[in-house]
């Protein structure tokens, strides 16, 4: 199963992973055309800065025992047994935000515009080359690695 593995020390806080993620979710866009000012522009990954530790890349871990799935009562979040990725189904979501509160990494958030759905990493499943953020990271601070359960 593939996961994004973070090497915090390497991160420079350039936010290229943010752009890549926004572009991956704006149909037909690329790095030149992605609209960073659109109200719909939302990133599914975050870079926090800590004065002691430096940059902290916050990405969905697609956890083995995902708290978000466990806390979701409407079945909108499910762990795919084949890929191991935790996927979100907007149509089933009741917007109760139990997942947002329970994710230990704080990676989930309600969407800015309507606050009726959750913004969640989909592992770029529809992208033939895999996670867009990983391709865009100039420091190789995030990498896709095969992990066993």
């Amino acid at each position, binding site marked *: 199963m593939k996961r994004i593995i973070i090497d915090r020390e390497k991160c420079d806080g350039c*936010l290229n992973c943010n*752009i890549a993620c*926004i572009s991956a979710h704006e149909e037909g866009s690329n*790095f030149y055309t*992605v609209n960073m000012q659109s109200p719909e522009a939302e990133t599914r990954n975050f870079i926090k800065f800590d004065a002691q530790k430096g940059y902290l890349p916050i990405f969905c871990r697609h956890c083995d025992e995902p708290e978000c799935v466990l806390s979701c009562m409407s079945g909108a979040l499910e762990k795919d047994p084949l890929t191991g990725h935790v996927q979100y189904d907007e149509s089933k979501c009741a917007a109760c935000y139990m997942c947002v509160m329970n994710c230990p990494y704080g990676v989930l958030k309600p969407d*800015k515009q309507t606050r009726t759905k959750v913004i969640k990493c989909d592992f770029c499943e529809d992208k033939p080359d895999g996670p867009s953020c990983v391709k865009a990271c100039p420091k190789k601070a995030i990498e896709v690695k095969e992990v066993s359960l």
Partner: protein
Amino acid sequence: MNSNFSCKTCASADQKLETFISNLSVDTSHHRMEGQSVKCGFGLQGICCRLCSNGPCRITPDGPKGVCGATADTMVARNFLRAVSAGSGCYIHIVENTALMLKKTAASKGVLKGKVALAKLAEIFEINEADEHVCAEKIADMVLADLYKPDYIKMELVEKMAYKPRFDRWKELGILPGGAKSEVFSGVVKTSTNLNSDPVDMYLNCLKLGISTGLYGLTLTNLLNDVMLGEPSIRLAPVGLRVIDTDYINIMITGHQHSIFSYLQDRLIQDDVIEKAKAVGAKGFKLVGCTCVGQDLQLRGEHYKEVFNGHAGNNFTSEAILATGAIDAVLSEFNCTLPGIEPICDELKIKQICLDDVSKKANAEMKPFVFEEKESQSNEIIDAVIESYQARRGVVTLNMDADHGNDDTLTGVSEGSLKSFLGGTWKPLIDLIVKGEIKGIAGVVGCSSLTAGGHDVLTINLVKELIAKDILVLSAGCSSGGLENVGLMSPSAASLAGPKLRAVCESLGIPPVLNFGPCLAIGRLELVATELAEAIGVDLPQLPLVLSAPQWLEEQALADGAFGLALGLPLHLGLPPFVTGSPVAVQVFTQDMLNLTGGQLIIDDNAKSAAETLDAIIEKKRKELNI
């Protein structure tokens, strides 16, 4: 040998060069592309600002403005105007040096090879003077006087040089430039921290810089050089790595200021200097062309048959040229002198001398050109090069490629030589356009880059598409270096053109891509366009003429582009100039410009669809002219 670099080189439209480079044991730009393949999204869109210590600020969904309140539109416009100002400064530096050189040459009663250019300038500048040296000095003085004006005093030669309908439009828009050097200064001031925040004002400023860059940095540099160095004349010449002859002491030249080499290049073929070369076992000296100064020398090659062996390649061929091992010294005076040549020169013991400190290379000897000392300086350079030759030849392995390039590139095309070729009038060309034998003209100009598919890839694919549509291509800049090395400027390339253009080319014995030489010659294309418009009696935007800088590289190219837009011409770029993060920029360049100057920016990195767009524009302009 050094093997501590990526072994995967980027693609080149020039297959032989790609193979040559991929087998090299030195690191080149083509090797380094892979390590730089992940690009910063904020940089690409132009939405990063580091003008103050509160920054760098970037436009993100959570940070839609900089700390100071700067919007994406302001950031992009500031970044763009800064780049255009710097690019303009580069060309203005070139014309300033060229005018100073003409002034000193004239004052010292030096040789003026270009009588036609002198007469032409005297006519444009309205100088009535029989003595050619006095006349040339007056011309130089008028150019310098304009360059040195403050920004609040308009330059006087603009009205004399520009096509009247264009001049009138520029006046209406309030974009007539003041002193060209001061305009660069104003552009820089305007874009500093917390000054101008009005994108439209800044884009109009770019157009103003485009005008001073184009008319002075480009057009006048050519004409002043023509006076000193001789006018271009059409001929066939060899190009590519094959031009390097290992029997000679070889000097590669890089830069844009041909006149700096003029004394030296005459000196290199004088008997006593040839004797010096023979004494160390060489047949003599040869200059090997690289970058725009090589294109310029090639253009005027008729006057320099003995000393100039031919143009080897463009900016991103320079490392390969050195890697042949047969170059004994590099003389540089401007860009595009890549920092990447330095370790290669060290490894292959190649002497580097810089003649202008603006392009001082870290490991090069600095010898600023001084007109009054040109005799002694040239002798010192010759001795240093001989010393280098002796120290390295026999020690350094040669790695030649006699198969690269060709022997029949048509060169020497200029506004003057083309018109003479046509019989002293533009009528034959206009007739061919009216009849549709030539559908239109595309000026494919500017640099070579390693993006947009690889080295020269988009340029060459686009040109092939255009000629197949019966569009005649005129080329100026490093794009020419790529086009000639792959044979598109050889008469046999006519077979790649559409049936009508092919027939025209075959009957005249010319290729479908005409070689105007260096990027400076974009100024010559402007002269051709203006003379055609004048002959037909229309303004420039009405002509079935488009511009493309498919692989624009640098700030100078952006200043050139601003000139193209000021002229009111459609301008295609392969990749956007770091402006797409601003909706206002996109609107101004792709839409509003049509109403301002008649120009328009088209961005497309696909050769086929870009050619279709340009073709459609040409068709539309033909319809509007009822042809």
